[in-house]
């Protein structure tokens, strides 16, 4: 009932671990069979290894959290050699999330990943709010986004999913631009650019000043964006943002998401994604749905009132 096809890849169910919140999958295998998930997005990868941001990296907010990890990762070559083989044993779809500072890095990175066996989908992160120059800019302006998608498209033999930023000037136009430039799917949203100030030191909490906000607090906005984007593009949409229960996941699916990603909620309860899978399964059974896809986009794209 939950089997889902995303860009031609069959997922056991539409529940995917969001990038940066699930490592490379091994850590959470200690708690549950991660093979029961629809898929796992890797930690954001860059061509070269990165140490990430200095200073404090996490801060809590009402019903949310801010992070400033800054794409710390071992680099794509090390990922391919050391992490991917282990990920492939986990028994679920593997989505490689790739970030970058400039076009060349993106292209070279995607090329390496595209040639690797065992990666099912490449998720192009054009939206990390925690990296200065680069990254973010691609996520804000449509033409910048289109240019990076167009640049990686020719070297990407695998399904290409573009991860959008909620900080985009116009997320609908952004999604359409990515679709036109060759994206096979879009996923949204990444974290929101946000600020916290330590009133005692009179300084920003984060060295990088702003950081990315995620968690339940962002859900209503993320859901609106997913609905708007799903109403405007013809490629599949993967919904992300504050999903913590199967009801949340279902809202995103009804708004038009083919699948969903769960991030911060896993920190609250390591096994939350299994609860979501089980809840969606029960829902399908209770409602006599042969497939969860039946309720995908059921909200429609038309606004009921004039």
């Amino acid at each position: 009932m939950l089997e889902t096809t995303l860009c031609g890849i069959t997922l056991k169910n539409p529940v995917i671990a969001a990038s940066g919140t699930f490592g490379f999958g091994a850590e959470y295998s200690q708690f549950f069979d991660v093979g029961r998930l629809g898929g796992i997005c890797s930690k954001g990868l860059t061509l070269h290894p990165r140490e990430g941001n200095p200073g404090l990296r996490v801060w809590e907010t009402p019903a949310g959290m801010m992070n400033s990890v800054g794409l710390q990762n071992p680099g794509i070559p090390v990922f391919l050699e050391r992490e991917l083989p282990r990920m492939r044993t986990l028994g679920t779809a593997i989505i490689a999330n790739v970030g970058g500072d400039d076009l060349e890095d993106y292209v070279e990175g995607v090329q390496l990943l595209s040639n690797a066996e065992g990666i099912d989908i490449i998720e192009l992160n054009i939206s990390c709010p925690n990296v200065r120059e680069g990254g973010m800019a691609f996520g804000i302006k449509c033409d910048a986004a289109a240019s990076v998608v167009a640049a990686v498209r020719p070297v990407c033999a695998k399904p290409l999913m573009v991860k959008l930023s909620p900080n985009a000037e116009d997320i609908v136009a952004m999604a359409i631009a990515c679709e036109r430039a060759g994206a096979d799917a879009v996923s949204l949203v990444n974290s929101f650019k946000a600020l916290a100030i330590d009133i005692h030191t009179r300084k920003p909490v984060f060295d990088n000043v702003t950081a990315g906000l995620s968690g339940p607090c962002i859900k209503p906005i993320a859901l609106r964006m997913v609905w708007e984007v799903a109403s405007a593009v013809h490629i599949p949409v993967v919904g992300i943002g504050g999903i913590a229960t199967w009801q949340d996941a279902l809202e995103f699916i009804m708004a038009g998401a083919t699948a969903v990603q769960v991030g911060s909620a896993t920190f609250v309860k390591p096994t939350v994604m299994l609860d979501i899978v089980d809840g969606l399964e029960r829902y399908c059974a209770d409602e006599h749905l042969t497939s969860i896809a039946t309720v995908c986009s059921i909200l429609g794209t038309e606004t009921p009132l004039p």
Partner: protein
Amino acid sequence: MTNLSPAYIEGATVLSQERLTEDVYRLTVATTTGGAPGQFYMVRAWEREPLLARPLSVHSVDEDTVSFLYQVRGRGTELLARLDEGGKVALTGPLGHGFHTEELCGRIAIVTGGIGIAPMFCLARTLPAGDVTVIAGFKSTPYAVAQFVDLGVDVRVATEDGCDGTRGFCTAIFDPHIYDMVVTCGPMSMMARVAHLCAEAGVPCQASLEAHMACGVGACLVCSCATVLGNQRVCADGPVFDAAEVVWHA
């Protein structure tokens, strides 16, 4: 001692909650998941808010229980302190790499600041009492030291306000030269000082680091600390590190 692998337990029962001082409590929970000295749990005693669980070291452990010694610092620990016997907590753990007990031989100093004493009781229990000296600093009234005395361990106390033991910081009464091994836990600035003294004296030192955490299991990279090997995850690569490998900022 072997680090144990973790589990997620939704509704572990509180067996007791003791108030030791104004703001320090000992919480004992029914769980068979155990823990090695220096390992910790992500603890949650609330439903939705704050969002994240809080890391607490294993203070004492037996087959059916784990105890935590904690200080009320903010919202999370305040909610913990409201728990009564019979209350429920969610636990993820035991997590992380604890003290390298196999390396702990000869004369051992345990140097702690404030609530940094928490992980040391279960550590001391595994060591030959006669070889161990606890050098514990507190802001004011000491806590949780009697239990070391009961083990037969030599305990020296320093308090910042001089209300007990020597007035001042614990580092003032700590001479690394007379020990073969040092373990430390406390505020980062204090541990940096201990690490420095040990390095000068050429004595190996293990430090249990602090960091704000989200996942606690090594998946999110928010708890990183700078080491000579690059950034390491306090939760999964530590919390116990070789002090000589840590890049101390203070």
